[in-house]
Structures are given as structure tokens and as C-alpha cells.
């Protein structure tokens, strides 16, 4: 692992951090549905799926910690809000159920494309983790594809809210594939088997059919990810950051 040159290693750190933060922040947003999801059964399902994402984030932070010699908890909870690298898609508050479902649908499909590719990474620890994560993400995909269909078929208000959410989230969803610093090195080393831009094309192809079947217009498929797609932070995220760092921040170096 330490046979990576410095620039490649730094780029890998960026990649791992971006993935871990995506999962971590989304896990926290959607865990807010605990207790208030549409029905009891969905309450348990949404909470469980959110826990899965925190679990994936943990595994990714640990991989990162091995690489940098830092502490995984410290990486997860010890950064200021501006230090997080999640895609702008995860900058938004939970909002309503349609909004949360729209975000999950866009993200789960993006994550699936990313993991599918990383399963072939030359960085073996990441390839192994991607294979493991994909098995759990299979269910996430099924669940949120299903909810997208249900809300779309619900007609009236349900369809309108979903369509508005897809439109609002679309530009920020592109940011899951925002180019990373040093990305070319990762591609050259086969750590990232293909560029994020080519993964984005695959994702666009993948979400087109279900969106069309659900009569949800694709806002503008030419939109490229914004340059600050993974660095722009919002007040909504600053609030969430305050929430999820509250306990760890209350007593530094406490043993739990």
C-alpha cells in the first residue's frame, strides 16, 4: 500500500474521503426519518438503510485511516463543516418524503455505478470493500427504485412533489461525479478504473429509463458537475454538522 507515490496516494485519499462523506452525511440526513416515516414498517426500513450507510462510511474512513495513519473517528467527526467533501447533493436538508426519495434514487444509482467500477480497482482493499458494499446496496437500489415508482404512480401532489425534487436536485446530483484532484493519476494507476466523467455518462444512461417510465422529465442532461460540487457547503449542512458532532465535540478524547 505504501508503494503508492505521494501524488497518487493523495488522490486516493480524496477519492476515499469523497465516498465516505457521501455515505456519512446521507446516512445522517435520512436517519432523521426515524419516528416520522410514512408508516411504521418504512420507519424501520429507512432507519436501517441509513445505518447501513453509516456502516459503509465507517469502513471507508478506516481504509483512509490506514493510508494516512490518522484515526477513523477523528476523520469522521473531527473536521469543521468546510472540511467535508460530500457531493452537493448531500448539502440539502431532509425536506419532505418525495425529496428524500428523489435524492436516494439519484444517489443510490450513482453509488451503484461507482461501486461497480471500483470492484475492479487495482487498489485491492478498495476493490474488496466495493464488492462487499455492492451486496448491501442491491437492496437499497430495489427499495428506492420501488419508492420512486410508487410516488410517481401516486399521481397529483405525489407526482408533482417528486418531479419538483428531481428538478431541484439534478444539478447537485451531477456533483457525485465532480472531477477529483489528481483523478488522472488514479485512472492511470487503475485505482479508479475509469474517469468520473465516464461514470457519470453511465449513471445518466441508467436513471433515464426509470425516470421516463415514471413520467419525470430529466431537467438538462448536458449539465456538467460544478467545479465546487464537492466543496460548496450550505447552512443546512452546517446545522447537520453541528448535530452529528455535538456528542463527540462535548468532550474531546472521551472513551465511549
Amino acid at each position: 500500500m505504501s508503494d503508492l507515490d505521494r501524488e497518487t496516494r493523495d488522490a486516493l485519499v480524496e477519492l476515499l474521503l469523497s465516498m465516505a462523506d457521501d455515505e456519512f452525511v446521507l446516512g445522517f440526513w435520512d436517519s432523521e426519518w426515524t419516528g416520522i416515516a410514512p408508516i411504521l414498517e418504512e420507519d424501520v426500513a429507512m432507519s436501517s438503510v441509513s445505518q447501513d450507510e453509516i456502516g459503509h462510511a465507517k469502513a471507508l474512513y478506516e481504509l483512509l485511516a490506514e493510508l494516512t495513519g490518522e484515526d477513523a473517528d477523528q476523520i469522521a467527526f473531527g473536521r469543521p463543516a468546510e472540511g467535508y467533501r460530500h457531493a452537493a447533493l448531500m448539502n440539502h436538508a431532509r425536506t419532505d418524503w418525495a425529496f428524500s426519495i428523489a435524492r436516494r434514487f439519484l444517489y443510490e444509482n450513482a453509488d451503484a455505478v461507482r461501486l461497480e467500477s471500483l470492484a475492479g480497482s487495482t487498489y485491492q482493499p478498495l476493490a474488496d470493500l466495493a464488492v462487499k458494499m455492492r451486496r448491501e446496496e442491491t437492496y437499497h437500489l430495489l427499495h428506492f427504485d420501488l419508492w420512486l415508482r410508487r410516488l410517481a404512480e401516486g399521481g397529483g401532489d405525489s407526482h408533482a412533489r417528486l418531479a419538483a425534487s428531481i428538478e431541484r436536485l439534478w444539478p447537485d446530483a451531477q456533483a457525485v461525479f465532480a472531477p477529483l484532484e489528481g483523478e488522472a493519476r488514479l485512472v492511470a494507476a487503475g485505482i479508479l478504473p475509469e474517469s468520473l466523467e465516464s461514470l457519470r455518462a453511465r449513471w445518466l444512461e441508467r436513471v433515464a429509463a426509470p425516470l421516463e417510465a415514471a413520467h419525470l422529465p430529466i431537467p438538462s442532461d448536458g449539465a456538467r458537475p460544478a467545479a465546487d460540487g464537492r466543496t460548496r457547503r450550505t447552512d443546512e449542512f452546517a446545522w447537520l454538522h453541528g448535530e452529528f458532532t455535538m456528542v463527540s465535540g462535548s468532550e474531546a478524547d472521551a472513551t465511549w
Partner: protein
Amino acid sequence: MSSGYASAVSSIPPAKDRVWEVFRQEAEGDPMVHGGSVKAPDEELATHYAREFYGRRQESERLWIVPRDAITELDDPDLLKPPFDRSFKRPGGFLLKHKLEAARERAGSPQVDEVGE
């Protein structure tokens, strides 16, 4: 309103309240055991919820998810607990105790500790 048909129709619960019974198998080869139930509007969501409630901790090898209205229930005591002695239908066969006692009495050799029970 008063027709039997109307009341039968209105007794079907709305889709969102459909109940599904979940049976689970703990290990390969074990019998399927009733785990509990979930509410879901259709088979697809019922499968997801069954997975969450009875499988998310890796405690199940296999689940059966059955709509409750597909289950035929029999709980008529006249059919299941008839008032007559049906001990001869048990796999163990007849209860011989009383016959044995009677036979011993006839033979005049009662066994003190057994008679009178």
C-alpha cells in the same frame, strides 16, 4: 348498504393496511416458523419490510411472506376439540391403564399402589 355483497366488499382492508404473515427459517434444514407480521400495500414492499423486520440482523436463512387473506383459518372447537375421548387417535394408541386395572381386579391380584388412583 344492507346487502351481504356490500358488506363483504367493505370488509376488505384498504391496500395500505394489508397484512402479511412472515415465516422464517433460522438455519438450512430447520422448519419454517411463524415470525410475526408486517403491513404493506403490495408483495414487493411486504418483501422489503419482512427483510427489515425478520432478516436485517442476518438471523434468517429464508423467509416466506404470505398475505394474511390467503390463509384459511380453522379454529372450530367442534372440529378440533370434540367433547369425546379421542385418545385412541393419538399416535401412542389406546390408554391401557384402566383396562389393565379392570383385568387385574377380575383376576383377583390387585396391585395396591396402582389401584385407587
